[in-house]
């Protein structure tokens, strides 16, 4: 492993927590560069899940018995842990566990959007939104008779903040914006956008799926009204996402899903809602996942989110530098040397992204190829697909060199 990594992270030691990275395909060790899709899960998190099922498993909030008490307490405390992780001073009442970022978006779009939006209202999105946010608000706006407007993306892959001041106006009711773009790597000025939204008495929803895993996030410093992220992109398990919401907003909102757990009192005619956040967690919730996600937060805090951020940015910039050696590689997003999340989307001139991905797979190099759930952004970029390499705490420069070498093989094949 290169010496560079060791300045920030002890990558070699970290990698011991991820046995999956030792897997070999065709005699070559896997080079896992698809972390924006999902990150690998370290042993301490896997152990937490196993330990929960081996020793504590029970339904929560229902049993008077010891196991249920233990499971309930651990599950509730996981909410507090995640609140602390993203700077939500309201604690568990501001943290709803969902299935993923997508469900967090839908929760707010249905529970708040359908109730509050109407004709004449505008929902402001950006051209770089993930489908999770774009499709959800587009469809809810349609149902509500509201309009959707887009903040455009500039040539160098940033939000056009000049236009943003125009697009966000008196009719804006909701601004939904991605914190770090999963395609461009752009880190958006979400605090500034929150100010613009609040100046117009609008709310702001921030999609932090690509931000919380790799940088310190403080929802209160951003002044986000809602903030969403997924466990499986931050060394946690699949099946869990988080919705942060300001307490007074969550209190005013009606539930999204109905059923058990989310009620306090039920008669044949009506029901009263449970306290926050349980009002938004209908049915048996994501107990093991929630407890494991708290373990993932511990794991990342032990490494230090500042270190993760610097490590990822260094890797992304190294990839940008390596790609710049080749005239036939086009990259998207901010230029090399500027702030970006730990990912680079690119195209090799003579090789379709899907072919490239298949050939890289021969070298056990795992990347993503396609539209990365940002079709409207690909339309703006004038391309149908791209390849994307995305990094995490365990990746190294040597792995990026392997990627570049494998790309060269594809290039030779198609020459």
């Amino acid at each position, binding site marked *: 492993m290169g010496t560079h990594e060791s300045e920030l992270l002890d990558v070699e030691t970290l990698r011991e927590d991820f046995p999956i990275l030792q897997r070999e*395909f*065709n005699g070559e060790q896997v080079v896992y560069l698809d972390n924006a899709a999902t990150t690998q899960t370290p042993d301490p998190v896997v152990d937490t899940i196993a330990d929960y099922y081996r020793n504590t498993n029970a339904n929560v909030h229902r049993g008077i018995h010891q196991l249920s008490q233990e499971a309930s307490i651990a599950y509730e405390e996981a909410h507090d842990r995640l609140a602390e992780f993203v700077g939500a001073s309201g604690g568990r009442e501001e943290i709803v566990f969902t299935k993923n970022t997508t469900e967090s978006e839908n929760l707010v779009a249905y529970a708040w959007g359908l109730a509050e939006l109407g004709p004449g209202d505008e929902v402001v999105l950006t051209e770089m939104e993930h489908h999770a946010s774009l499709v959800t608000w587009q469809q809810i706006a349609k149902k509500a008779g509201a309009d959707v407007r887009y903040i455009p993306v500039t040539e160098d892959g940033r939000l056009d903040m000049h236009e943003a001041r125009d697009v966000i106006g008196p009719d804006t009711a909701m601004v939904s914006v991605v914190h770090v773009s999963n395609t461009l790597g752009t880190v958006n000025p979400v605090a500034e956008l929150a100010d613009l939204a609040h100046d117009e008495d609008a709310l702001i929803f921030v999609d932090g799926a690509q931000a919380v895993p790799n940088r310190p996030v403080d929802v209160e410093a951003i002044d986000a009204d809602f903030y969403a992220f997924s466990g499986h992109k931050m060394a946690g398990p699949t099946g869990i996402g988080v919705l942060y919401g300001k307490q007074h907003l969550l209190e005013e909102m009606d539930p999204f899903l109905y059923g058990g757990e989310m009620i306090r009192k039920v008669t044949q005619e009506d029901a009263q809602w449970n306290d926050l956040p349980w009002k938004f967690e209908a049915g048996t919730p994501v107990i093991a996942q929630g407890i494991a996600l708290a373990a993932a937060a511990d794991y990342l805090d032990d490494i230090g989110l500042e270190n993760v951020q610097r490590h990822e940015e260094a890797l992304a910039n190294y990839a940008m530098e390596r790609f710049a050696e080749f005239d036939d590689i086009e990259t998207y997003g901010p230029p090399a040397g500027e702030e970006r999340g730990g990912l680079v989307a690119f195209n090799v001139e003579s090789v*379709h*992204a*899907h*072919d490239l991905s*298949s*050939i*890289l*797979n*021969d070298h056990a190099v795992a990347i993503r*190829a*396609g*539209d990365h759930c940002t079709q409207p952004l*690909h339309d703006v970029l004038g391309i*149908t*697909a791209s390849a994307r390499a995305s990094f995490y705490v365990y990746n190294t420069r040597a792995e990026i060199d392997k990627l570049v070498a494998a790309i060269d093989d594809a290039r030779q*094949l*198609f020459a």
Partner: protein
Amino acid sequence: MGMGSDMYRQQILDHYKNPRNYGELEDATFSHVGENPMCGDEIEMHVKLDDDEEEIEFVSFTGDGCAISQASASMLSEKLQGTTLDELEAMDRDDVIDMLGVDISPMRVKCAVLAEKVAQDGADIYKGELDVEKTKTEE
């Protein structure tokens, strides 16, 4: 070496780099377009039938996309020449994979069968048995 290189044998690369029967067909009996929404591959097949409207006289294609979908369209355009509409309708994914002569990894089968599905849907539309504007390979 795994699926990938097996997939990119000489024949596939040759058809990709030098596509056969590429271009519009002025006197086509029918044309039909389809896409693989996952990757943006798009292929239009143009088919000319003989006077009895049974035998396929000539096939061409237009569009762009990955090597697998494009080579598949190119090879299919050659294979279909002189066959009948019934034979086209009878083709399935195994026939396409046989035609390509390589192992297609599971995630790429949609790319491989795009041209065949487009030609089949085109024939069905021509016979009035189907009504779609664009074929989409999603199963």
